[in-house]
């Protein structure tokens, strides 16, 4: 047993912190999901993405020949932590490109696709911004039931249907889309394909969806006779489900960045209670301690998952375990933190007034962000299903 980072990782961490000192203002920390909301913050994010690209950090896990730095799992862990703690924006480049579009194209894309799309992502270019179109109005957790149709017509495919909850679609140049290329199948998992859709296509409309505090983060996409060239098929036709599973596996490990965000938010809360003297109150002490213990636990588990991956010991369920765990932690933190802030926790997070907001308004933001976190990338309960099946070998429940 050894819980210490190596010298290489520590050096990398200091290097990132130098970058933070120079480029990332800390008074705007903790405004989750707001990156895509306003033009101003989006532009700032993209400017940081460019700088990260120059350091090869934007795509640090990618192999060097694709513009990455071939980072180890542990280096990636360190990077995710620093991103979470300091709130480094722009890392996702509209959520999808750096995390799974690039790696998927490397794995099962054509050479032409790799040459066309990958360098744009690695460079932090506005044309390298992607969104992901999986969910549909009638297909959420049950993703394989999706119905958006994609029919071959000569050298083109014609797409009809609707996508929903598409994060950053209003900022994206491309959509990484799951579609149905064959509806005449016995099992719903068959007949699916992955395609690349140009967001400027004719017949494609993006309609903003606002969340309940008024934040514009995700969208609906309507597709009416949208034509894409056949070259935009990724992988094999009708083998989309397998490709999707491969792509989803790159989404794993979100828990790490999240635990680091929690660390920052808890640090801010502790600091606030010290400045105000609240930390002398028994109830406040008990709550802070409980959060501290939960957070230390969640973080240690997330490390374990990375260590297992690095050593080829992963048993599939760990990232789901950690996602569910962090969902619960966020909820508890937002509740305890808000209770500690008292009346000020009811401020409108989208119209934060520095005159009133405590700790930069981060708890008001978290309070309403955390249900979204618990739903996005697979709900807490569907993660629990995965852990039950693969961590405890229980029979499938549905």
């Amino acid at each position, binding site marked *: *047993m*050894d*819980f*210490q*980072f*190596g010298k290489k990782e520590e050096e990398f961490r200091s290097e990132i*912190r130098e970058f*933070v*000192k120079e480029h990332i203002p*800390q008074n705007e*920390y903790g405004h989750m999901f707001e990156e895509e909301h306003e033009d101003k913050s989006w532009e700032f994010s993209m400017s940081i993405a460019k700088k990260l690209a120059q350091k090869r950090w934007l795509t640090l896990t990618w192999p060097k020949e694709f513009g990455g730095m071939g980072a180890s799992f*542990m280096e990636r862990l360190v990077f995710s932590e620093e991103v979470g*703690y*300091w709130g480094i924006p722009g890392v996702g480049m509209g959520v999808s490109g750096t995390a799974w579009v690039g790696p998927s194209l490397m794995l099962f894309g054509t050479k032409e696709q790799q040459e066309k799309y990958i360098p744009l992502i690695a460079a932090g270019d506005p044309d390298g911004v992607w969104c992901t179109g999986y969910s549909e109005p009638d297909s959420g957790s049950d993703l394989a039931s999706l119905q958006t149709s994609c029919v071959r017509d000569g050298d083109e495919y014609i797409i009809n249907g609707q996508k929903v909850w598409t994060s950053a679609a209003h900022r994206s140049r491309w959509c990484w889309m799951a579609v149905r290329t064959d509806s005449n199948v016995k099992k719903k998992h068959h007949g699916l394909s992955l395609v690349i859709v140009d967001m400027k296509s004719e017949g494609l409309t993006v309609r903003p969806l606002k969340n309940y505090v008024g934040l514009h983060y995700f969208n609906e996409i309507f597709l009416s006779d949208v034509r894409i060239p056949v070259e935009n098929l990724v992988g094999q036709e009708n083998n989309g489900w397998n490709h999707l599973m491969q792509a989803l596996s790159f989404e794993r490990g979100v828990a790490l960045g999240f635990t680091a965000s929690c660390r*920052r938010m808890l*640090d*801010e809360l*502790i*600091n606030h209670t*010290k400045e105000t003297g609240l*930390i002398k109150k*028994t109830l*406040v*002490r*008990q709550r*802070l*301690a*409980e959060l*501290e*213990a939960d957070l*230390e*636990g*969640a973080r*240690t*588990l997330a*490390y*374990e998952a990375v*260590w*297992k991956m690095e050593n080829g010991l992963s048993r599939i369920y760990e990232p789901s*375990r950690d996602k*569910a*765990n962090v969902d619960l932690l966020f909820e508890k933190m937002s509740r305890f933190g808000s209770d500690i802030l008292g009346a000020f926790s009811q401020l409108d997070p989208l119209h934060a007034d520095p005159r009133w907001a405590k700790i930069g308004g981060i708890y008001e933001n978290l309070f309403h962000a955390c249900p979204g976190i618990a739903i996005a990338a697979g709900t807490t*309960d569907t993660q*629990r*299903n995965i*852990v*039950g099946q693969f*961590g*405890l*070998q*229980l*029979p*499938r*429940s*549905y």
Partner: protein
Amino acid sequence: MDFSFTKDQELIRKSIKEFFEKECPKDKVRELKEDKKGYDPKMWKKMVKLGYTGLVIPEEYGGTEGEFWDILIFMEEMGRNIVPTPYFPTVVFCAMPILEFGTEAQKKKILPKIAEKGEIWAYAQIEESSEQDASGITMSAAMSGEDYTLNGSKLFVSYANVANQLLVVARTAEAENPEEGLTVFIVDAGAEGVVCDVIPTTARDMRCELRFDNVKVPRDNILGEPGKGWAVVDYIQQHAAVLKAAEMSGGAHAVLNITVKYAKERKQFDKPIGSFQAIQHRLVDMLTEVEELQYLVYKAAWRINSGSPSRRLNSIAKAKANGVYHRVCYHGIVMHGAIGWTEEMDIGLYHLRTRSMEFDAGNTDYHNDLIASELEKSEPEFLTLFA
């Protein structure tokens, strides 16, 4: 970073596990529930012979000079098998602080008896108020000539009924700060004026009331410095917290495994109950909590083992263990249905131990407060980077 044990450590675990499985099946645990002594002297002898009571004691005092990891692994396995023995009070509560604070003469005299002969010791701190901080210690020890005279009573002293020797914390001076003026005494359990009564408790770990009526203790029998006894108590609590948490972690693992196994076997509505989502999600939450606890314990132990203990991590380990052990037992029993609520099933044996273990070495409120004290002292990274 390394989340695995060495080959040697795995071997140690294997032999301890096999020993407990052979020597202490659940029938034995049930049998000892009704036993007056609360442990099996034959098993105890074997444990001593295998060197278990000397795991952290240096060779020169008759021990095997292992690492902190060895005793941690030992406690995990003991917790997994819920072995009724006076091991914890003897080794963790007494031998460890004697090794840390004892004079050369004390160590030479006492430690070989524990390591080689299995002399039983008990630790007396708690009193009527049940408080675990220094304010809970009111029993007085007055100096009279070359001796001290102890008067008062101690409660819930585990295995005092069979102990030869006691560590007793008493107040030798009044001070504004309750942590000052405390002294730890080594007291012969058979000394005149010491009366011991067993208090019936659910864990059957022989919690005793000890009454001291003008008990004379020679000055040489002070552990550590007179008036500075809190340092010893704190040392005991910090280390015992992690080792008790290890014991609870082992127990929680066992309960999880028992319940998962049952959920796969028991059928209702023609299906294993483990196929119902309500059961699955409870089990999954148990798994997460149990794995989390396990690594929190290891993290605290790693700091102790490498010579830089973390008060924050020690308290986190124990505070977590307190919550997790109970929750796992409660949900485990409920998921069994009525059979889980009977004495026939092993799972209840675990739940019967939760209150004892929760209290030992600090309950949740106590450790949460210690965690908060550490947070008060800490400097957040976001302030230091831009300072």
